[in-house]
C-alpha cells in the first residue's frame, strides 16, 4: 500500500478546526521504525484537470509502492505525501506550504497544470527544495529557476513537430481549433509563435470550451473557409475526441492533426472510426510494442506500460508518463547524491544526464531544467484503431 494514509500532520490539521473554540491539541509526531524519506506531491486528481492529474496520482502511488517493495531508497522506506488540489491554484499553494512547513518533504514531484505549478513555485524557491513539475508551459523553466524542473515536453516542441510534418506534405495553409483550457490556449499561443519559421499561415482560428459537447458550428466555419489545407487541434480531454468525430461527421477532407494532449489509447476508443488517419506528435510510450528492440526507450516504456495497465486496468497516457519520469529522475538523483539534503538533491537533478524516460531522453543542465529536444516526439498516425509510427519523420 502507498504510505499516504493517516498521517499525524493531517490529524493536527483537523484539530486546527477546533482552534476557534480554543481547544487546540497537537498530535504527537509518530516515530516510524526506519525513518522514511518523504517525497511530496500536489496533483489535480479531481476537477477540470483530473484527466491529467488522475493518471499522475496513480503512477506516483504505484511507483512508490513498487520502490518500497524492492527495499526502498538507500535502505529507507519512501513515504509519498500526496495532496489533491482540485485544479485550484490557491489550494495548491496551501498544500505546497503544508508539504514544506508541516510534512517537511525533501523534494516534490507534482503540479498538474501550469496555473497550479506557477502558484507553487515561490514556496519551493523560498524553501530551497527541488520541485519537478508535470505541467506543459515553457515559462516554468524559462527563465531557469534554481529549484524548479519539469518533465513534459513544452508545447512549442509539439507545434514544431506538427509543422515539420505539414511542411513535409507541402501543406501551408491551416485551420486551427483550440480548447480554451490552459493546455489548449498555451499550445495555441506557442504554435502561433513558431508558425512563421515554417512558412505556414492560419486561415481560420476557432476555439471551444473545456466542456463543450458539439464543435460542428466552429468546424463548419473552418470547412467553409477557402484554402484550408489541414486542421490542427491543440487540446486535451474529451474535446479533441469530439472535434475528431465532428470532423468526420462534416466530411472534412483535409488532414487532421491532434496534439500530445490526446496521446492515450482512450482517445482512439472515444473518437472511434473518425480517428482513422489522424496524426499527432507523441512520446514513445504509446508505441511501446512497436519500438525496435534496439530503441533505447523500449525497456522503460514497456515496463511502465505493463505495470500501470495491469494495476489500473486503464490505458497509459502521456500524462502518467510525465509523473513516472519525474519521480524516476528524482529517485535516481537521490541515489546519486547519496543524501536527502534538499540542496544536494537539487544539484543531482540538475546533473541528470542521459536519463531514459517514457517521454524522451533527459539531459539537464544549469541552463536547461527540462532537457528534452523535439526528437523525443514521434509522429504517429492512427490506422485501423492503432498508432503507427510514421517512417522517415523520426529524427
Amino acid at each position, binding site marked *: 500500500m502507498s504510505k499516504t494514509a493517516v498521517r499525524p500532520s*493531517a490529524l493536527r*490539521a483537523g484539530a486546527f*478546526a477546533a482552534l*476557534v473554540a480554543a481547544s*487546540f491539541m497537537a498530535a504527537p509526531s509518530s516515530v516510524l521504525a526506519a525513518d522514511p524519506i518523504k517525497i511530496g506531491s500536489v496533483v489535480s486528481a479531481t476537477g477540470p484537470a483530473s484527466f491529467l492529474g488522475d493518471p499522475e496520482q496513480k503512477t506516483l502511488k504505484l511507483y512508490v509502492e513498487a520502490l518500497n517493495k524492492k527495499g526502498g531508497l538507500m535502505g529507507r522506506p519512501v513515504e509519498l505525501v500526496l495532496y489533491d488540489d482540485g485544479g485550484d491554484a*490557491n489550494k495548491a499553494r496551501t498544500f505546497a506550504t503544508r508539504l514544506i512547513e508541516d510534512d517537511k518533504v525533501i523534494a516534490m514531484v507534482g503540479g498538474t497544470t*501550469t496555473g497550479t505549478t506557477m502558484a507553487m*513555485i*515561490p514556496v519551493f524557491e523560498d524553501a530551497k527544495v527541488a520541485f519537478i513539475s508535470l505541467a506543459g508551459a515553457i515559462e516554468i523553466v524559462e527563465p531557469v529557476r534554481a529549484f524548479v524542473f519539469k518533465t513534459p515536453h513544452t508545447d512549442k516542441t509539439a507545434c514544431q513537430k506538427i509543422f515539420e510534418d505539414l511542411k513535409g506534405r507541402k501543406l501551408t495553409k491551416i485551420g486551427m481549433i483550440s480548447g480554451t*483550457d490552459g493546455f489548449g490556449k498555451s499550445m495555441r499561443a506557442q504554435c502561433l509563435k513558431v508558425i512563421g519559421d515554417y512558412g505556414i499561415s492560419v486561415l481560420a482560428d476557432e476555439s471551444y470550451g473545456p466542456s463543450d459537447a458539439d464543435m460542428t458550428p466552429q468546424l463548419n466555419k473552418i470547412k467553409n473557409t477557402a484554402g484550408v489545407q489541414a486542421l490542427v487541434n491543440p487540446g486535451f480531454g474529451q474535446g479533441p475526441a469530439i472535434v475528431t468525430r465532428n470532423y468526420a461527421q462534416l466530411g472534412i477532407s483535409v488532414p487532421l492533426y491532434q496534439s500530445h494532449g490526446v496521446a492515450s489509447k482512450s482517445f482512439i476508443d472515444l473518437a472511434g472510426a473518425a480517428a482513422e488517419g489522424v496524426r499527432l506528435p507523441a512520446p514513445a510510450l504509446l508505441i511501446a510494442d512497436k519500438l525496435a528492440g534496439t530503441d533505447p526507450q523500449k525497456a522503460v516504456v514497456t515496463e511502465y506500460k505493463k505495470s500501470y495497465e495491469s494495476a489500473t486496468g486503464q490505458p497509459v497516457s502521456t500524462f502518467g508518463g510525465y509523473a513516472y519520469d519525474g519521480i524516476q529522475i528524482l529517485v535516481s538523483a537521490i541515489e546519486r547524491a547519496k543524501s536527502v539534503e534538499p540542496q544536494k538533491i537539487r544539484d543531482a537533478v540538475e546533473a541528470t544526464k542521459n536519463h531514459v524516460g517514457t517521454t524522451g531522453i533527459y539531459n539537464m543542465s544549469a541552463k536547461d531544467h527540462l532537457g528534452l529536444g523535439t526528437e523525443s516526439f514521434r509522429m504517429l498516425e492512427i490506422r485501423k484503431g492503432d498508432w503507427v509510427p510514421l517512417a522517415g519523420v523520426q529524427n
Partner: protein
Amino acid sequence: MLAAVVTSRLATLLFLALVIAVVPVLAPSSFYLRVASLVWIFALAALGLTILMGYAGQVSLGHAGFLGIGAYAVAVGPARLGLDPLLSFFLGAALCGLVAYAVGKPILRLKGYYLAIATLGFGLIVALVLHSEAAVTGGPDGIQVARITLFGWRISGATTWYWVTAGALMIGAALALNIAASPSGRTLRALHDSEVAATGVGVDVAARKLAAFVVSAVYAGVAGGLLALMNGFITPETASFMHSIELVAMVIIGGTGSVLGAVVGSAFLTVLPQALTILQEYEQAVLGLLIMVFMIFLPAGIVSSLKRFVLDRAP
C-alpha cells in the same frame, strides 16, 4: 448578564481579537498561519455576503466574480498599466463597487430564484472573461502578482500576511457590526423580514438593496485583492462557480446575518479540506455530505445554534 455579553457588538470584536491573538501562539508552523490567513480572507468575503444575505435578504450565487475582479485588479494594474500595487488594490475594490452598482441596478429588481440565476450568470461571465482575455489576464494559466511594498517595506512572509489579513478582517468586522446597528442596517433587516411592510413605512427598498449589494461586492473585492497579493499568483479559478457556492455555504454554515458566523463558516470550509486529505478519494463525497448535513440539521448556522445553546443555559 451572559446574554448581554454574548450579543454585544464590542464583545464580538473582542472575541475575534482574542482568537486572532491566540492562533499564532498555538500554530506549530507557518503553514497554520497561512491557513489562518486564508480563513481571515474568506471570512472578509463572507462578511460582505452576510450583509447582503442576512441583512438585506438577497442571495448572490456569483460573488466569486467580485473576488476575481479584486484579485485581478492587483495583478493587472501593476503588470499592464504600470499602476502602484497598493493603488490597484483600492481601485480594484472601487471597481467591484462600481460593477455591483451597474449590474445590481437591474438585477435586484428580480426576486428569489431569478436573482439567484442572474447573479450566477454574472459570476460565470466574469470567470469567462478572465479565462478568455489572455492578453490582459494571462488566460487560464493565470498571472503573476507583483509584491507589494509599503513605505519601502516589502510585505512578505507568512507572519506578516497573517497580521495584514487579520487586521483587514477586524476592520471589516467592525464596519459590518456598525452597519448592522445603524438605522440603515435596521431598515435592511426590516427588508429581510417583509419587503411589503418596509415599503409601507416609506423605506426605499430598491436603493437599500442596491447599497447592500455594492457594499458586499467591495468586501469581496478587498478579499480578492488580499488573496492575490498574499499568493503572488492568481488564476481565473478564483472567480469560479464553486467558489461562489463556497462563499454562500460559509455564510449559511456559520449563521446568516452574524459576523462571527461568517468567520466560523470560513474557518469551517477552509480548514475542512485540509483535514479531509486523510480521506483521499473519499474527500469529495464527504464534503458534499457534510454540506448537506449542516444545511439540513443546522439551518440557522453554527453560531446562532451555539448562541441559543449558551443562552438557554444562562441563568
